[in-house]
């Protein structure tokens, strides 16, 4: 069959996927105020962005939330994966089922169910509610990443550690943790990005006491065109690109 047809098609679709991103990046350096017409190169929107104190505060809040959510979900997710992998216990299927439900249920359903819970127990909406929610939706992804790593692993190693007299805790620390390290890093990066990108769940469980970036952007772009958002989007793009390359690099290196 002709070979240029599939190639042209692939190129075309990639072009469609990347044109909006390209437009965003180019327009972040636009000097014009109108937002649609090109008015020469300038860094004024980056300047405006960093002079906007509420925006900078929201940036720090988002970063801190993503850092803490990724860390907590990596710890709990890794322990869950280890428990599922090593232990036999009652209700294992139920545990698996609950993780599956979190991953497959529409985001908005997760969002309202968590909001309901937080209001019921009287938790003030803010950092803590956001953290609990973000850890919950990141958890299944960490568990899957770590489980995948554990499933291709030589079972004789932990047995050997045991035979040499190591306790379960020591064995986990000295044998299992080093083995799953790449998966932990990859899971952490995935959690970090998921948290930083989330709009749906945060809209519900966030509160005015802790404003985060996606909600700030959301309220800005609903009303009209805000050229600062171009600059912010470009920064976020570069940031997540670095994170993604980092995680791929870690995974590839560990396979060798």
């Amino acid at each position, binding site marked *: 069959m002709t070979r240029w047809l*599939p190639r042209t*098609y*692939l190129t075309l*679709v*990639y072009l469609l*996927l990347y044109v*909006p*991103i390209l*437009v*965003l990046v180019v327009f972040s350096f636009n000097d014009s105020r*109108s*937002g*649609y017409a090109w008015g020469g190169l300038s860094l004024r929107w980056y300047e405006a962005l960093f002079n906007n104190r509420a925006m900078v505060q929201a940036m720090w809040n988002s970063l801190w939330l993503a850092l803490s959510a990724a860390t907590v979900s990596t710890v*709990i997710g890794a*322990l*869950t994966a*280890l*428990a599922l992998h090593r*232990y036999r*216990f009652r*209700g294992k299927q139920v*545990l698996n089922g*609950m993780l599956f*439900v979190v991953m497959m249920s*529409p*985001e*908005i*359903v997760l969002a*309202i*169910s*968590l909001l*309901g*819970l937080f*209001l019921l127990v009287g938790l003030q909406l803010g950092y803590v509610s956001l953290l*609990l*929610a973000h*850890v*919950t939706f990141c958890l299944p992804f960490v568990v899957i990443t770590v489980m995948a790593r554990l499933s291709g692993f030589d079972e004789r190693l932990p047995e050997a550690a045991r035979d040499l007299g190591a*306790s*379960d*805790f020591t064995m986990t620390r000295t044998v299992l943790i080093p083995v799953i390290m790449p998966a932990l890093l990859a899971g952490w990066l995935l959690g970090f990005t998921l948290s930083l*990108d989330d*709009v*749906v769940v945060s*809209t*519900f469980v966030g509160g005015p006491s802790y404003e985060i970036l*996606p909600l700030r*952007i*959301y309220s800005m*772009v*609903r009303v009209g*065109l805000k050229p600062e958002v*171009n600059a*912010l*989007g470009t920064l976020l*793009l570069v940031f*997540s*690109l670095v*994170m*993604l390359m980092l995680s791929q690099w870690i995974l590839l290196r560990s396979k060798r």
Partner: protein
Amino acid sequence: MRSVMQQPFRTAVLVLVWGWLLFLVLTPNLLVIGASVMTRDPGTFISLPLNLDAYRQLFNPLYLDVFLNSLYMATMTTLICLLIGYPFAWALSKVPRHRQMLLIFLLIVPFWTNSLVRTYALKLILATNGLLNNALMSVGLIDQPMQMLYTEGAVIIGLVYLLLPFMILPLYAVFDDLREDLLRASHDLGAGRLATFVHIIVPMTLPGVLAGIMLVLLPAMGLFFVPDILGGSRNLLVGNVIKNQFLDARNWPFGAAASIMLTLAMAFLMFAHRLSKRRIGEDGV
């Protein structure tokens, strides 16, 4: 053969994991089911008596209209994603291995970029004095700007743009596993290209199609920020209704009932997906 010493660690891990999931997954979900059969209350959000009013309200012509319209937009989104994604995944699976990795990487880069920001970028392109209108006018295809933003079409474009990778990835997975021996057998037995496509390729890739539909159709009803940014006030999704009912109108039973319908739709799609996989397993081997 387990020593007593290792039990505390095991117990601590299990308590933590179970505690988290019971408190933050099971309880909230039960709460939603409970809320959907209770009565709306301005003070405490929900109260007794139990009833099915919320579900009845779903069939109120006003909301039914929104639901049907949302279903229509989600279905169009899914179809367009399938039309673009199916040949795309096919072509991708034919590319030499080492280049496939790079292409898949390029496919997931947008997924790692803030979806709000990407939706906003579409606004720059689709606006009345935006890039697309300017480009079309400068080449003389149109005399005056077209209204593209704040239309149903704009919402569908936005949803397709955000969700396309979710259709392509499961399709790529099935095309990658497509058994060349079956294709060759079909050819050797005298089947033409069309017959091979209809009888071999379509059934073999069906699980991927259904997985893709699952990952696109439901989110396409829930991503409320897309119509908020691109669609104006008339082109609402189920997600917008749930959000308005929960956050603005404080009508919890109704919001809960609507989200349960979404979950049931998801469960149905997952069931269909599993069924199709089982069938392939029986026929294929």
